[in-house]
């Protein structure tokens, strides 16, 4: 628990940022250096080729990521536990991540549902459970949340269908 709490503080964020930038740099460098066609053009002739800028940018990312990682490690190792009290935790509550992850997951499924059911039905089916749940969380009774959620979801889906499909002619 203490480890998780410290992740929300400055050294923890430095570590996470360092890992993120470092990982992107390593994946990118592997992609560039293993691309034979890309590397063949590098340093041949007056045109420096399409590998030049990626290599410069990835090197910058690698150095920056490593510096942040070292800064985070140093902060983690040398910050006394009592200093944590002056460094406020900026980690949002887990339920925020749960809501975000659930919405993202339902949005990933939505394009598949659109291809099966069409935009109108799929978007109404996507919006209704979310609106019912979010309405219910606001302290409204179950029945009212259900009625309101379903009605607004239907209106929302119809409005978007009219604007994008009927008026703008987008074949979704």
């Amino acid at each position: 628990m203490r480890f998780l709490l410290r992740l929300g503080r400055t050294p923890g964020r430095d570590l996470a940022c360092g890992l993120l930038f470092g990982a992107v740099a390593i994946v990118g460098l592997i992609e560039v250096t293993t691309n034979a066609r890309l590397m063949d053009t590098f340093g041949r002739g007056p045109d420096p080729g399409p590998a030049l800028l990626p290599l410069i940018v990835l090197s910058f990312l690698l150095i920056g990521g490593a510096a942040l990682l070292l800064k985070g490690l140093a902060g983690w190792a040398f910050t006394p536990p009592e200093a944590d009290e002056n460094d406020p935790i900026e980690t949002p509550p887990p339920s925020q991540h749960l809501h975000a992850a659930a919405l993202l997951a339902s949005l990933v499924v939505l394009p598949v549902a659109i291809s099966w059911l069409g935009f109108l039905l799929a978007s109404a089916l996507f919006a209704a459970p979310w609106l019912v749940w979010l309405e219910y969380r606001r302290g409204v009774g179950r029945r009212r949340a259900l009625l309101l959620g379903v009605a607004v979801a239907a209106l929302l889906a119809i409005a978007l269908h009219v604007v994008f499909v009927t008026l703008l002619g987008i074949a979704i």
Partner: protein
Amino acid sequence: MLIDSFFTSLLATLASPWGVTLAVLGTLLGIVLGALPGVSSTMALAILLPLSFGMTPELAILFLLCVFVASVYGGSISAILINIPGTPGAIVTQLDGHPLARQGRAKEALVYALVASSVGGVIGLALLVLIAPLLASVAMQFRSPEFTAIAVFGLVLLAYASPGSTVRGLLVGAIGLLCGMVGFDALTDVSRFTFDSRSLQGGIELVPLCVGLFGLAEVLRHLHASRQRRPDVDMATLHSPAPKLGALAKRWASMLRGSFIGALVGAIPAAGSAIAVAIAYAQEMRFSRRPERFGQGAVEGVVAPEAANSSSIGGTLIPMMTLGVPGDAITAVLMGSLLIHGLRPGPMLFAENPGFVGSLYAGFLLALLLTLALGLVLMRWLPWILRIPSHMLLIGIALLCVVGAYAIRNNMADVYIMLFFGAVGYGLHLLSLPTAPLAFGLILGPLLEENLRRSLLLGRGSWEVFLHSPIAMGLFGLSLLAILLPLLAPLWVRLREDIKRVSAP
């Protein structure tokens, strides 16, 4: 030539029922979305951008400018009425606007904000019309080394002004640059960063990235807090008398000061409206004979920042239109719209498409006039806008993001790219990293790479080509200074304190 096309397109828009309808619709949507806390001007523009794909470039820019200008005023509505700024640019307006509302003078504060916003917008437009062609004609003389330096300088400056440290902003910008390299290289046709995926071969479009980063990521952030109810608005305060013309005219000095500060600060890439309004407010306090009234309902505390906020729009358009460097995140989204319509902002825009530049000026003026007119007409219904439940809005925006991303190329791959960048935006927020440099990197990446390679070709592979350009060297020097300044400033402060301590008796 430019004046001719300005008047021609203004008259053409006014004579076209479709053009007027779009302008009114854009203004209404801008006021409503700008007024809603949690929906910034950038988000409003990003989610409404797909509506403009089917329009002509002239109508698209008219619609988007109406949304942009109106959302800037909309941001002040919630700042004044419920003490929550609708947009970051309205953050200072609430300091004196809300105390005025609490004194029963909400209508007065809203009218002052609206008029100051309109005056500021017109001055911002005038500076844009005057400065942009001059800067564009200077930029026409630039060659590849100068453009390489401009791209580097723009990216560094944009990262410098982003929240958090410059280095972190630059690292996020570097990921943006990499995103701009995804797909086939234009010169050699070699694929880069496609990871053998067909969806990535076409590259990453700016619009799905912006919709994900500025639209969906914000929905993911705010969804959990949507159960909180907003404070109610006291309707009685909106029945108070509006200020008379004479009282409005008496504030001309505050409006002018705010407007010039806004336009000049806005013209600096990345400075943006939030910095402009803070400077305008501080200057107004300095000029005031009774600075102690600030924070307790001083009218100048509403007028000057609102004028600065609106005039910064014209300022932010200057680097975008003349150099192809977005002034801030909002102009990055606007650039996305122009690119979709095959228009690359930069000095060549003035030479190749003077008609479009004229219609942009005309659209800007129309947006200002419509915001003033509709803002005055709608004033009594403003509290109803603030009653729209945020959870309904957020789910609607999430659906809009999906349809909008699909609408770019009628391709589901763009929807998944948008979802990916929504998740990336949420993750960056968790790590306290700025999101906007990602979009700046994607925009400036092609400009940087094309000109860097061309410069090296000109120099026959030698980097000395940059040494022969004083402008490029100056810009590289300034970029280095912007990176080193945040690192060296604390050392300098510590050194100065040490010297003081040692020299003290």
